[in-house]
Protein backbone atom coordinates (compact mmCIF):
# COMPACT_ATOMS: atom_id res chain seq x y z
CA UNK A 1 0.00 0.00 0.00
CA UNK A 2 2.33 2.70 1.21
CA UNK A 3 5.49 2.96 -0.81
CA UNK A 4 7.39 5.63 1.13
CA UNK A 5 6.97 5.46 4.89
CA UNK A 6 8.81 8.49 6.31
CA UNK A 7 7.96 7.98 9.99
CA UNK A 8 10.09 5.94 12.42
CA UNK A 9 9.90 2.16 12.10
CA UNK A 10 10.16 -0.30 14.97
CA UNK A 11 13.18 -2.47 15.62
CA UNK A 12 12.21 -6.08 16.21
CA UNK A 13 13.77 -8.39 18.80
CA UNK A 14 13.04 -12.06 19.40
CA UNK A 15 10.79 -11.26 22.35
CA UNK A 16 8.66 -8.84 20.29
CA UNK A 17 8.61 -10.61 16.90
CA UNK A 18 5.32 -12.47 17.52
CA UNK A 19 3.62 -9.13 18.11
CA UNK A 20 4.79 -7.68 14.79
CA UNK A 21 4.03 -10.93 12.96
CA UNK A 22 0.46 -10.73 14.30
CA UNK A 23 0.07 -7.11 13.25
CA UNK A 24 0.96 -8.15 9.70
CA UNK A 25 -1.98 -10.59 9.88
CA UNK A 26 -4.26 -7.81 11.21
CA UNK A 27 -4.37 -9.11 14.78
CA UNK A 28 -3.55 -7.18 17.95
CA UNK A 29 -1.98 -9.48 20.50
CA UNK A 30 -0.86 -8.80 24.06
CA UNK A 31 0.69 -10.99 26.73
CA UNK A 32 -0.89 -12.82 29.66
CA UNK A 33 0.97 -14.45 32.54
CA UNK A 34 -0.20 -17.96 33.43
CA UNK A 35 1.45 -17.75 36.84
CA UNK A 36 0.06 -14.47 38.19
CA UNK A 37 -3.00 -13.91 35.96
CA UNK A 38 -1.83 -10.49 34.78
CA UNK A 39 -1.88 -8.92 31.33
CA UNK A 40 1.12 -6.81 30.40
CA UNK A 41 2.03 -4.17 27.86
CA UNK A 42 4.49 -3.66 26.13
CA UNK A 43 5.53 -7.18 25.11
CA UNK A 44 8.60 -8.62 26.79
CA UNK A 45 10.36 -11.92 27.42
CA UNK A 46 9.47 -12.07 31.12
CA UNK A 47 6.39 -11.39 33.20
CA UNK A 48 6.94 -7.86 34.52
CA UNK A 49 4.73 -8.57 37.52
CA UNK A 50 5.95 -11.90 38.98
CA UNK A 51 9.15 -12.19 36.89
CA UNK A 52 8.05 -15.64 35.81
CA UNK A 53 8.55 -17.09 32.34
CA UNK A 54 5.05 -18.37 31.61
CA UNK A 55 3.78 -15.51 29.52
CA UNK A 56 1.67 -16.40 26.50
CA UNK A 57 0.32 -14.39 23.61
CA UNK A 58 -3.42 -13.74 23.58
CA UNK A 59 -5.54 -11.90 21.08
CA UNK A 60 -6.88 -8.60 22.41
CA UNK A 61 -10.46 -7.63 21.67
CA UNK A 62 -8.90 -4.63 19.97
CA UNK A 63 -11.40 -2.41 21.73
CA UNK A 64 -10.77 0.16 24.41
CA UNK A 65 -11.23 3.73 25.54
CA UNK A 66 -9.11 6.88 25.37
CA UNK A 67 -7.37 7.21 28.79
CA UNK A 68 -5.80 10.54 27.84
CA UNK A 69 -4.64 12.33 24.70
CA UNK A 70 -3.10 15.49 23.29
CA UNK A 71 -3.56 17.22 19.96
CA UNK A 72 0.01 17.73 18.84
CA UNK A 73 0.60 21.01 17.00
CA UNK A 74 4.41 20.91 16.81
CA UNK A 75 6.90 18.10 16.21
CA UNK A 76 10.20 18.61 14.36
CA UNK A 77 10.52 14.97 13.30
CA UNK A 78 10.15 14.19 9.62
CA UNK A 79 6.93 12.33 9.05
CA UNK A 80 5.18 13.98 11.98
CA UNK A 81 6.05 17.59 11.12
CA UNK A 82 3.82 17.30 8.03
CA UNK A 83 1.07 15.50 9.91
CA UNK A 84 0.14 18.10 12.58
CA UNK A 85 -2.33 18.42 14.08
CA UNK A 86 -2.49 14.76 15.10
CA UNK A 87 -3.77 12.98 18.19
CA UNK A 88 -1.28 11.22 20.45
CA UNK A 89 -3.17 9.09 22.94
CA UNK A 90 -2.96 6.44 25.62
CA UNK A 91 -5.70 3.89 24.99
CA UNK A 92 -6.80 1.52 27.73
CA UNK A 93 -7.67 -1.83 26.19
CA UNK A 94 -10.60 -3.85 27.50
CA UNK A 95 -8.00 -6.19 29.01
CA UNK A 96 -6.85 -3.30 31.22
CA UNK A 97 -3.46 -2.31 29.83
CA UNK A 98 -2.70 1.10 28.31
CA UNK A 99 -0.75 1.62 25.11
CA UNK A 100 0.48 4.62 23.14
CA UNK A 101 -1.20 5.20 19.80
CA UNK A 102 -2.64 7.76 17.44
CA UNK A 103 -6.39 8.23 17.12
CA UNK A 104 -7.00 8.26 13.37
CA UNK A 105 -9.90 8.48 10.93
CA UNK A 106 -11.59 11.30 12.88
CA UNK A 107 -11.39 15.02 13.51
CA UNK A 108 -8.88 15.67 16.34
CA UNK A 109 -11.45 18.02 17.90
CA UNK A 110 -13.87 15.11 18.41
CA UNK A 111 -11.50 13.05 20.56
CA UNK A 112 -12.25 12.97 24.27
CA UNK A 113 -11.28 10.98 27.37
CA UNK A 114 -13.48 7.90 27.65
CA UNK A 115 -14.16 7.77 23.90
CA UNK A 116 -14.69 4.21 22.63
CA UNK A 117 -12.08 3.20 20.06
CA UNK A 118 -11.05 0.10 18.13
CA UNK A 119 -7.84 -1.03 16.52
CA UNK A 120 -7.05 -0.45 12.84
CA UNK A 121 -3.86 -1.25 10.96
CA UNK A 122 -1.67 0.56 8.46
CA UNK A 123 0.94 -1.18 6.33
CA UNK A 124 4.21 0.73 6.63
CA UNK A 125 6.50 -1.63 4.70
CA UNK A 126 6.18 -5.22 3.46
CA UNK A 127 7.61 -6.30 6.83
CA UNK A 128 5.95 -3.82 9.18
CA UNK A 129 2.28 -3.19 9.92
CA UNK A 130 1.45 -0.70 12.68
CA UNK A 131 -1.65 -0.69 14.91
CA UNK A 132 -3.62 2.53 15.41
CA UNK A 133 -7.01 3.25 16.92
CA UNK A 134 -10.11 4.83 15.40
CA UNK A 135 -13.57 5.67 16.81
CA UNK A 136 -15.47 2.44 17.51
CA UNK A 137 -17.94 1.60 14.77
Amino acid at each position, binding site marked *: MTTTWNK*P*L*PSIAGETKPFWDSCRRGQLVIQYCEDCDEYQWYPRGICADCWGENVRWVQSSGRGTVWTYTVTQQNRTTGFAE*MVPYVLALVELEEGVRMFTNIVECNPRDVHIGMAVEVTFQTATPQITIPYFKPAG
Partner: protein
Amino acid sequence: MVDLRRAAAIVGIHEHVTRYSPDKSELQIQGESVINALNDAGLTKDDVDGLFTASSSIRNSGMNLADYLNLYPSYVDNTTVGGGSFEFHLSHALTAIAAGRINVAVITYSSLARSGGVSVGTGGVGRFGHPVLDPSPDSFEELYGLTTVGLYAMIARRHMHLYGTTSEQLAEVSVAMRHHASMNPEALFRDPITVEDVVNSRVISDPLHLMDCCVITDGGGAVVVASPEVARNCRHTPVWVLGAGEAIAHQGAGKRDLIYIAAHQSSPRAFEMAGVTHDDIDMAMVYDSFTITVVETLEDLGFCKKGEGGEFVSGGRLQVGGALPINTDGGGLSSNHPGMRGIFLLLEATRQLRHQFDGTGRQVPDCKIALAHGTGGALGSRHSGGTVILARD
Protein backbone atom coordinates in the same frame (compact mmCIF):
# COMPACT_ATOMS: atom_id res chain seq x y z
CA MET B 1 18.34 3.33 58.67
CA VAL B 2 21.48 5.16 59.75
CA ASP B 3 20.73 8.78 60.67
CA LEU B 4 22.15 10.75 57.73
CA ARG B 5 20.87 14.15 58.80
CA ARG B 6 23.61 16.79 58.53
CA ALA B 7 26.09 14.12 57.36
CA ALA B 8 27.02 16.42 54.46
CA ALA B 9 26.55 20.03 53.46
CA ILE B 10 26.55 22.18 50.35
CA VAL B 11 29.52 24.48 50.87
CA GLY B 12 30.17 25.98 47.44
CA ILE B 13 28.04 26.92 44.44
CA HIS B 14 28.41 28.56 41.07
CA GLU B 15 25.93 29.28 38.32
CA HIS B 16 27.42 29.91 34.91
CA VAL B 17 25.11 32.78 34.11
CA THR B 18 25.30 32.49 30.34
CA ARG B 19 22.03 31.85 28.54
CA TYR B 20 23.73 31.76 25.12
CA SER B 21 27.28 30.61 24.76
CA PRO B 22 28.16 29.41 21.26
CA ASP B 23 31.90 30.00 21.78
CA LYS B 24 32.40 27.75 24.79
CA SER B 25 32.39 23.96 24.96
CA GLU B 26 30.23 22.18 27.49
CA LEU B 27 33.35 20.94 29.27
CA GLN B 28 34.72 24.48 29.51
CA ILE B 29 31.48 25.67 31.12
CA GLN B 30 31.73 22.80 33.61
CA GLY B 31 35.41 23.52 34.27
CA GLU B 32 34.77 27.20 34.95
CA SER B 33 31.81 26.34 37.15
CA VAL B 34 33.80 23.84 39.22
CA ILE B 35 36.67 26.29 39.74
CA ASN B 36 34.32 29.07 40.83
CA ALA B 37 32.30 26.81 43.12
CA LEU B 38 35.48 25.64 44.86
CA ASN B 39 36.55 29.28 45.26
CA ASP B 40 33.13 30.02 46.74
CA ALA B 41 33.70 27.24 49.27
CA GLY B 42 37.29 28.20 50.01
CA LEU B 43 38.52 24.81 48.81
CA THR B 44 41.00 23.78 46.11
CA LYS B 45 41.38 21.22 43.36
CA ASP B 46 43.38 18.98 45.70
CA ASP B 47 40.45 18.75 48.11
CA VAL B 48 38.11 17.12 45.56
CA ASP B 49 37.78 13.34 45.80
CA GLY B 50 34.26 12.76 44.40
CA LEU B 51 33.02 13.67 40.91
CA PHE B 52 29.33 13.67 40.00
CA THR B 53 27.95 14.67 36.61
CA ALA B 54 25.23 13.94 34.09
CA SER B 55 24.95 14.75 30.42
CA SER B 56 22.79 13.96 27.44
CA SER B 57 25.47 15.11 25.02
CA ILE B 58 28.92 14.36 26.48
CA ARG B 59 29.81 10.70 25.94
CA ASN B 60 31.13 8.93 29.05
CA SER B 61 30.57 12.14 30.93
CA GLY B 62 32.30 11.06 34.15
CA MET B 63 35.46 9.90 32.42
CA ASN B 64 35.68 12.75 29.96
CA LEU B 65 35.08 15.38 32.65
CA ALA B 66 37.78 13.87 34.91
CA ASP B 67 40.13 13.93 31.92
CA TYR B 68 39.30 17.57 31.06
CA LEU B 69 39.75 18.69 34.68
CA ASN B 70 42.84 16.50 35.10
CA LEU B 71 41.27 15.09 38.27
CA TYR B 72 41.75 11.60 39.72
CA PRO B 73 38.60 11.21 41.83
CA SER B 74 38.21 8.14 44.05
CA TYR B 75 34.43 8.18 43.63
CA VAL B 76 32.64 8.77 40.30
CA ASP B 77 28.92 8.88 39.55
CA ASN B 78 27.38 9.87 36.24
CA THR B 79 23.86 8.77 37.06
CA THR B 80 21.78 10.29 34.27
CA VAL B 81 18.04 10.20 34.90
CA GLY B 82 17.04 13.36 33.07
CA GLY B 83 16.62 16.79 34.56
CA GLY B 84 16.44 15.53 38.12
CA SER B 85 19.85 13.81 37.95
CA PHE B 86 21.49 16.33 40.25
CA GLU B 87 19.16 15.70 43.18
CA PHE B 88 20.13 12.03 42.79
CA HIS B 89 23.79 13.09 42.77
CA LEU B 90 23.36 15.01 46.02
CA SER B 91 21.61 12.00 47.54
CA HIS B 92 24.48 9.74 46.45
CA ALA B 93 27.16 12.20 47.60
CA LEU B 94 25.50 12.35 51.02
CA THR B 95 25.75 8.57 51.32
CA ALA B 96 29.33 8.42 50.10
CA ILE B 97 30.44 11.15 52.49
CA ALA B 98 28.55 9.63 55.42
CA ALA B 99 30.24 6.30 54.73
CA GLY B 100 33.63 7.97 54.84
CA ARG B 101 34.46 7.14 51.22
CA ILE B 102 34.99 10.80 50.29
CA ASN B 103 35.17 14.23 51.94
CA VAL B 104 34.52 16.68 49.10
CA ALA B 105 32.25 16.02 46.14
CA VAL B 106 31.72 18.21 43.10
CA ILE B 107 28.45 18.01 41.16
CA THR B 108 28.46 19.76 37.79
CA TYR B 109 26.48 20.15 34.59
CA SER B 110 26.42 22.19 31.41
CA SER B 111 24.57 22.26 28.12
CA LEU B 112 24.55 24.19 24.86
CA ALA B 113 20.91 23.36 24.14
CA ARG B 114 20.16 26.86 22.82
CA SER B 115 23.19 27.60 20.71
CA GLY B 116 23.04 24.03 19.45
CA GLY B 117 19.45 24.52 18.29
CA VAL B 118 18.19 21.49 20.21
CA SER B 119 14.39 21.06 20.02
CA VAL B 120 14.23 19.76 23.58
CA GLY B 121 10.46 19.66 23.84
CA THR B 122 9.28 19.15 20.29
CA GLY B 123 12.15 17.24 18.69
CA GLY B 124 10.27 13.97 18.60
CA VAL B 125 12.59 11.09 17.83
CA GLY B 126 15.31 13.68 17.22
CA ARG B 127 15.57 14.14 20.96
CA PHE B 128 17.38 10.79 21.14
CA GLY B 129 20.05 11.90 18.72
CA HIS B 130 19.87 8.59 16.85
CA PRO B 131 17.34 7.40 14.29
CA VAL B 132 17.14 3.68 15.11
CA LEU B 133 14.59 2.77 17.76
CA ASP B 134 15.32 0.26 20.51
CA PRO B 135 13.05 -2.83 20.26
CA SER B 136 11.37 -1.74 23.48
CA PRO B 137 10.01 0.51 24.73
CA ASP B 138 10.84 2.92 21.85
CA SER B 139 9.33 0.68 19.17
CA PHE B 140 5.96 0.73 20.92
CA GLU B 141 6.00 4.49 21.45
CA GLU B 142 7.97 6.54 18.96
CA LEU B 143 5.93 5.31 16.00
CA TYR B 144 3.17 7.61 17.22
CA GLY B 145 4.96 10.95 17.30
CA LEU B 146 5.71 11.35 20.98
CA THR B 147 7.23 14.66 22.03
CA THR B 148 8.35 15.68 25.49
CA VAL B 149 5.75 18.42 25.68
CA GLY B 150 3.13 16.00 24.37
CA LEU B 151 3.87 13.52 27.16
CA TYR B 152 3.31 16.26 29.75
CA ALA B 153 0.26 17.57 27.89
CA MET B 154 -1.39 14.15 28.14
CA ILE B 155 -1.09 14.27 31.93
CA ALA B 156 -2.37 17.87 31.94
CA ARG B 157 -5.40 16.73 29.91
CA ARG B 158 -6.06 13.87 32.30
CA HIS B 159 -5.68 16.19 35.32
CA MET B 160 -8.21 18.61 33.83
CA HIS B 161 -10.62 15.72 33.15
CA LEU B 162 -10.41 14.27 36.66
CA TYR B 163 -10.18 17.40 38.78
CA GLY B 164 -11.48 20.30 36.71
CA THR B 165 -8.09 21.97 36.57
CA THR B 166 -8.11 24.89 34.10
CA SER B 167 -5.64 26.43 31.68
CA GLU B 168 -5.92 29.62 33.71
CA GLN B 169 -4.75 27.78 36.84
CA LEU B 170 -1.78 26.31 34.98
CA ALA B 171 -0.98 29.81 33.70
CA GLU B 172 -0.74 31.04 37.29
CA VAL B 173 2.46 29.02 37.59
CA SER B 174 4.04 30.84 34.63
CA VAL B 175 2.93 34.21 35.99
CA ALA B 176 4.50 33.52 39.42
CA MET B 177 7.76 32.33 37.86
CA ARG B 178 7.94 35.45 35.69
CA HIS B 179 7.36 37.63 38.74
CA HIS B 180 10.41 36.02 40.36
CA ALA B 181 12.41 36.29 37.15
CA SER B 182 11.77 40.03 37.12
CA MET B 183 13.97 40.18 40.24
CA ASN B 184 16.75 38.02 38.75
CA PRO B 185 19.08 40.07 36.52
CA GLU B 186 20.34 36.86 34.85
CA ALA B 187 16.89 35.51 33.89
CA LEU B 188 16.21 35.06 30.17
CA PHE B 189 12.73 36.64 30.31
CA ARG B 190 12.04 39.37 32.88
CA ASP B 191 8.99 41.35 31.68
CA PRO B 192 5.87 40.64 33.75
CA ILE B 193 3.14 38.52 32.12
CA THR B 194 -0.52 37.85 32.84
CA VAL B 195 -2.70 34.75 32.85
CA GLU B 196 -4.22 36.03 29.60
CA ASP B 197 -0.77 36.23 27.98
CA VAL B 198 -0.22 32.56 28.76
CA VAL B 199 -3.59 31.19 27.66
CA ASN B 200 -3.49 33.31 24.49
CA SER B 201 -0.02 32.08 23.48
CA ARG B 202 -0.06 29.47 20.72
CA VAL B 203 -0.82 25.87 21.53
CA ILE B 204 2.19 23.53 21.25
CA SER B 205 0.47 20.34 22.35
CA ASP B 206 -3.07 20.74 23.63
CA PRO B 207 -3.74 21.80 26.41
CA LEU B 208 -0.22 23.24 26.86
CA HIS B 209 0.60 26.62 25.31
CA LEU B 210 3.98 28.05 24.44
CA MET B 211 4.10 29.91 27.76
CA ASP B 212 3.26 26.73 29.69
CA CYS B 213 6.66 25.46 28.50
CA CYS B 214 10.12 26.17 29.87
CA VAL B 215 12.64 28.21 27.94
CA ILE B 216 15.62 26.65 26.14
CA THR B 217 19.01 28.14 27.05
CA ASP B 218 22.68 27.32 27.37
CA GLY B 219 24.17 27.24 30.83
CA GLY B 220 25.66 25.21 33.61
CA GLY B 221 26.83 25.23 37.17
CA ALA B 222 28.50 23.37 39.99
CA VAL B 223 27.82 22.43 43.60
CA VAL B 224 30.46 21.46 46.17
CA VAL B 225 29.33 19.04 48.88
CA ALA B 226 31.50 18.34 51.92
CA SER B 227 31.70 16.40 55.17
CA PRO B 228 30.77 18.24 58.40
CA GLU B 229 34.44 18.54 59.37
CA VAL B 230 35.28 20.26 56.08
CA ALA B 231 32.04 22.24 55.96
CA ARG B 232 32.62 24.01 59.26
CA ASN B 233 35.83 25.55 57.90
CA CYS B 234 34.39 26.77 54.59
CA ARG B 235 33.64 30.39 53.72
CA HIS B 236 29.84 30.26 53.93
CA THR B 237 27.39 28.93 56.46
CA PRO B 238 26.87 25.24 55.62
CA VAL B 239 23.65 24.21 53.88
CA TRP B 240 23.02 20.80 55.43
CA VAL B 241 21.35 17.89 53.71
CA LEU B 242 18.57 16.73 56.02
CA GLY B 243 16.91 14.16 53.78
CA ALA B 244 16.89 12.67 50.31
CA GLY B 245 14.49 10.42 48.44
CA GLU B 246 14.77 8.89 44.97
CA ALA B 247 12.21 7.25 42.74
CA ILE B 248 11.38 6.20 39.20
CA ALA B 249 7.84 6.22 37.85
CA HIS B 250 7.05 4.23 34.71
CA GLN B 251 4.16 2.55 32.97
CA GLY B 252 4.12 -0.44 35.28
CA ALA B 253 3.55 -2.98 32.51
CA GLY B 254 0.76 -0.77 31.15
CA LYS B 255 -1.15 -0.57 34.42
CA ARG B 256 0.28 2.31 36.51
CA ASP B 257 -1.95 5.33 37.05
CA LEU B 258 0.51 7.96 35.83
CA ILE B 259 -1.52 10.81 37.31
CA TYR B 260 0.66 9.95 40.33
CA ILE B 261 4.24 10.92 39.57
CA ALA B 262 7.59 9.84 41.04
CA ALA B 263 7.39 12.55 43.71
CA HIS B 264 4.63 10.46 45.27
CA GLN B 265 7.29 7.83 46.06
CA SER B 266 10.37 10.01 46.71
CA SER B 267 8.75 12.63 48.94
CA PRO B 268 7.85 10.41 51.94
CA ARG B 269 11.36 8.94 51.84
CA ALA B 270 12.94 12.40 52.04
CA PHE B 271 10.61 13.72 54.73
CA GLU B 272 11.03 10.61 56.85
CA MET B 273 14.81 10.83 56.64
CA ALA B 274 14.79 14.56 57.41
CA GLY B 275 12.38 14.29 60.33
CA VAL B 276 10.54 17.45 59.31
CA THR B 277 6.99 18.16 58.12
CA HIS B 278 5.59 20.16 55.24
CA ASP B 279 4.86 23.06 57.60
CA ASP B 280 8.60 23.33 58.25
CA ILE B 281 9.42 24.03 54.59
CA ASP B 282 10.05 27.76 54.03
CA MET B 283 10.49 27.58 50.26
CA ALA B 284 10.73 24.95 47.54
CA MET B 285 12.55 24.55 44.26
CA VAL B 286 10.19 22.53 42.08
CA TYR B 287 11.26 21.40 38.62
CA ASP B 288 9.15 23.44 36.21
CA SER B 289 9.68 21.99 32.77
CA PHE B 290 6.00 22.77 32.17
CA THR B 291 3.29 24.35 34.29
CA ILE B 292 1.60 20.97 34.82
CA THR B 293 4.88 19.62 36.24
CA VAL B 294 4.58 22.07 39.14
CA VAL B 295 0.92 21.29 39.84
CA GLU B 296 1.53 17.54 39.79
CA THR B 297 4.72 17.78 41.84
CA LEU B 298 3.24 19.94 44.59
CA GLU B 299 0.39 17.45 44.94
CA ASP B 300 2.59 14.38 45.03
CA LEU B 301 5.14 16.01 47.34
CA GLY B 302 2.18 16.33 49.71
CA PHE B 303 1.81 20.12 49.91
CA CYS B 304 -1.84 19.69 48.89
CA LYS B 305 -4.17 16.81 48.07
CA LYS B 306 -4.23 15.14 44.67
CA GLY B 307 -6.47 17.23 42.45
CA GLU B 308 -6.13 20.43 44.48
CA GLY B 309 -2.93 21.62 42.80
CA GLY B 310 -4.72 24.00 40.44
CA GLU B 311 -6.19 25.89 43.35
CA PHE B 312 -2.95 25.67 45.35
CA VAL B 313 -0.88 27.47 42.69
CA SER B 314 -3.41 30.27 42.14
CA GLY B 315 -3.64 33.76 43.56
CA GLY B 316 0.08 34.43 43.98
CA ARG B 317 0.55 31.66 46.53
CA LEU B 318 3.81 30.54 44.87
CA GLN B 319 5.39 34.00 45.08
CA VAL B 320 7.65 35.25 47.85
CA GLY B 321 5.20 36.28 50.57
CA GLY B 322 2.74 33.58 49.49
CA ALA B 323 1.91 30.27 51.14
CA LEU B 324 4.83 28.41 49.54
CA PRO B 325 7.35 30.44 47.54
CA ILE B 326 8.84 28.32 44.77
CA ASN B 327 11.56 28.88 42.16
CA THR B 328 12.63 32.32 43.33
CA ASP B 329 15.13 32.54 40.45
CA GLY B 330 12.33 32.49 37.88
CA GLY B 331 12.55 28.75 37.25
CA GLY B 332 12.81 26.98 33.95
CA LEU B 333 9.72 28.78 32.77
CA SER B 334 11.46 32.19 32.75
CA SER B 335 15.09 32.05 33.88
CA ASN B 336 16.96 29.19 32.23
CA HIS B 337 16.60 25.58 31.16
CA PRO B 338 19.68 24.14 29.48
CA GLY B 339 18.33 20.68 28.66
CA MET B 340 18.41 19.52 32.27
CA ARG B 341 17.73 21.94 35.12
CA GLY B 342 18.06 20.03 38.37
CA ILE B 343 21.38 21.58 39.39
CA PHE B 344 19.87 25.06 39.41
CA LEU B 345 17.34 23.94 42.01
CA LEU B 346 20.23 23.20 44.39
CA LEU B 347 21.93 26.52 43.56
CA GLU B 348 18.91 28.72 44.30
CA ALA B 349 17.91 26.76 47.42
CA THR B 350 21.45 27.29 48.72
CA ARG B 351 21.35 31.02 47.92
CA GLN B 352 18.05 31.32 49.80
CA LEU B 353 19.38 29.40 52.82
CA ARG B 354 22.47 31.63 52.84
CA HIS B 355 20.12 34.64 52.93
CA GLN B 356 22.03 35.97 49.95
CA PHE B 357 19.18 38.24 48.88
CA ASP B 358 18.46 39.83 52.28
CA GLY B 359 17.00 43.29 51.81
CA THR B 360 15.46 42.44 48.41
CA GLY B 361 12.09 41.10 47.32
CA ARG B 362 13.70 37.85 46.13
CA GLN B 363 14.66 36.66 49.62
CA VAL B 364 12.26 34.35 51.43
CA PRO B 365 12.28 35.93 54.92
CA ASP B 366 14.08 33.93 57.62
CA CYS B 367 14.53 30.96 55.29
CA LYS B 368 15.69 27.99 57.38
CA ILE B 369 14.56 24.86 55.51
CA ALA B 370 14.16 24.42 51.77
CA LEU B 371 13.08 21.52 49.59
CA ALA B 372 14.20 20.78 46.04
CA HIS B 373 12.51 18.28 43.77
CA GLY B 374 13.93 17.37 40.38
CA THR B 375 11.90 15.59 37.72
CA GLY B 376 13.60 14.02 34.71
CA GLY B 377 12.11 12.30 31.69
CA ALA B 378 8.40 12.60 30.93
CA LEU B 379 5.35 12.43 33.18
CA GLY B 380 3.31 10.53 30.59
CA SER B 381 5.72 7.62 30.08
CA ARG B 382 8.62 7.31 32.55
CA HIS B 383 10.51 9.75 34.69
CA SER B 384 12.71 10.16 37.73
CA GLY B 385 11.99 12.10 40.90
CA GLY B 386 14.62 13.21 43.37
CA THR B 387 13.60 15.05 46.55
CA VAL B 388 16.14 16.68 48.85
CA ILE B 389 15.54 18.70 52.00
CA LEU B 390 18.15 21.28 52.99
CA ALA B 391 18.63 23.43 56.08
CA ARG B 392 20.90 26.06 57.60
CA ASP B 393 21.95 26.02 61.24
